[in-house]
């Protein structure tokens, strides 16, 4: 057994203290023959500190495309030649999407907009949309609307948004290679305001942007510093027309190593499968990740791409005897 896994068994599994950057790097550098042991330990950590339940979430794009930012992975930037056009979702369709999500057994519904930060029109749409969902659907509403002002944070709390997603996307040292129109520190500031407001913080990122393994470890350590309620873990799905459109998909074993390593850095966090798992891990790898530290999934489609069917994911959870977290457990 590699020394780092022995250390993690005591430090993380028994004492609930996450690995630091050096420890995460050691896990990320484990040879293939120790990957199964790392995933097994990460699974034990998840079961010990989070339990067997899996949090299920659906997401929808309220405002798609036309974003002024230049996040190099994103097909919704208006600065690239991506074929994604700008479109707004109307309130009845938003409520219908929330209902369909709730029907899968999901407890979370995240409303996302491709913006630098919300303007008055978007905040009005949010006010009306969140009120309509809360009146008609039993589901927790989360939001992801870019960078916020303090007033907007307060307004989202007032609307009843219980969790706010704002990804750091990658580590601080690599961020300028991925985004030039705003800084990592600006994102951090929004996260600070969200935390202080009492909303739950959802903060993750994307692996496979071209970062080194050392930078992946740096990212895990920086996320641990944020101490988010939830970390969505995406794997780059290279989008046509974006600056990262020709990047290779991350190797499946590296993705699984990252899942184990991030779980060992964040023993109590909801660690969610987000975009890219289908092309990175496939069905078998998806199962391996759920047995290697993941305890939440996005079901159904993503913002601009399609996902596995909710039915397939729910059947997999059933096969693995992992109960879907009930709404009552989230209130």
């Amino acid at each position, binding site marked *: 057994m590699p020394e780092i896994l022995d250390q993690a068994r005591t430090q993380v599994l028994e004492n609930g203290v996450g690995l630091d950057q050096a420890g995460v790097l050691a896990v990320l550098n484990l040879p293939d023959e120790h990957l199964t042991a790392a995933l097994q330990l990460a699974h034990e950590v998840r079961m010990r500190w989070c339990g067997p339940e899996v949090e299920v979430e*659906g*997401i*929808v*794009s309220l405002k*798609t495309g036309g974003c002024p930012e230049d996040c190099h992975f994103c097909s919704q930037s208006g600065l690239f030649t991506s*074929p*994604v*056009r*700008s*479109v707004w*979702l109307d309130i009845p*369709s938003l409520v*219908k*999407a929330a209902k*369909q*999500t709730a029907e*899968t057994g999901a407890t979370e519904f995240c409303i996302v907009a491709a913006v630098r930060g919300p303007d008055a029109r978007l905040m009005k749409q949010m006010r009306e949309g969140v009120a309509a969902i809360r009146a008609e659907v039993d589901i927790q509403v989360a939001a992801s609307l870019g960078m916020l002002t303090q007033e907007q944070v307060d307004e989202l709390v007032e609307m009843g948004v219980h969790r706010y997603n704002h990804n750091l996307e990658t580590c601080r040292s690599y961020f300028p290679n991925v985004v030039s129109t705003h800084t990592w520190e600006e994102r951090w500031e929004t996260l600070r305001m969200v935390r202080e407001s009492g909303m739950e913080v959802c903060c993750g990122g994307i692996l496979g942007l071209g970062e080194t393994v050392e930078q992946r470890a740096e990212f895990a350590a920086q996320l641990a510093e944020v101490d988010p309620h939830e970390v969505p873990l995406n794997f780059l799905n290279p989008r*046509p027309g974006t600056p990262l459109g020709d990047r290779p998909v991350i190797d499946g074993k590296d993705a699984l190593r990252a899942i184990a390593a991030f779980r060992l850095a964040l023993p109590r966090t909801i660690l969610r499968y987000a975009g890219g798992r*289908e*092309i990175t891990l496939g069905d078998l790898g998806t199962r391996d990740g759920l047995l290697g530290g993941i305890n939440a999934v996005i*079901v*159904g*489609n*993503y*913002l*601009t*791409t*399609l*996902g596995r069917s*909710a039915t397939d994911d729910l059947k997999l959870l059933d096969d693995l005897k992992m109960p879907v977290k009930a709404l009552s457990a989230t209130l």
Partner: protein
Amino acid sequence: MTPTGERRPNPVSSPRTGATPGDATSGAAVDAPWCDRCGEAAASGPHEGCAAARTLEPPRYCARCRRRMKVQVLPVGWSAVCVEHGESQG
């Protein structure tokens, strides 16, 4: 019109290459000369990569006129609207 607004003639009449079995309009193989994923002429190549990618993507271009469509992805399904040829769903 091309995605950038330039009008081009239809090069051929052939099935649109990226259509998937779950696509509600996949029966419309006639008069669909453009790949609905990459927007290039369907006859320009096999578009095997586009067809594979389309299992996890909605269409982006109208297969009949190559216009970029307004696409809304939902947790369950998607809709795509071509200003000339209307809405398709999957």
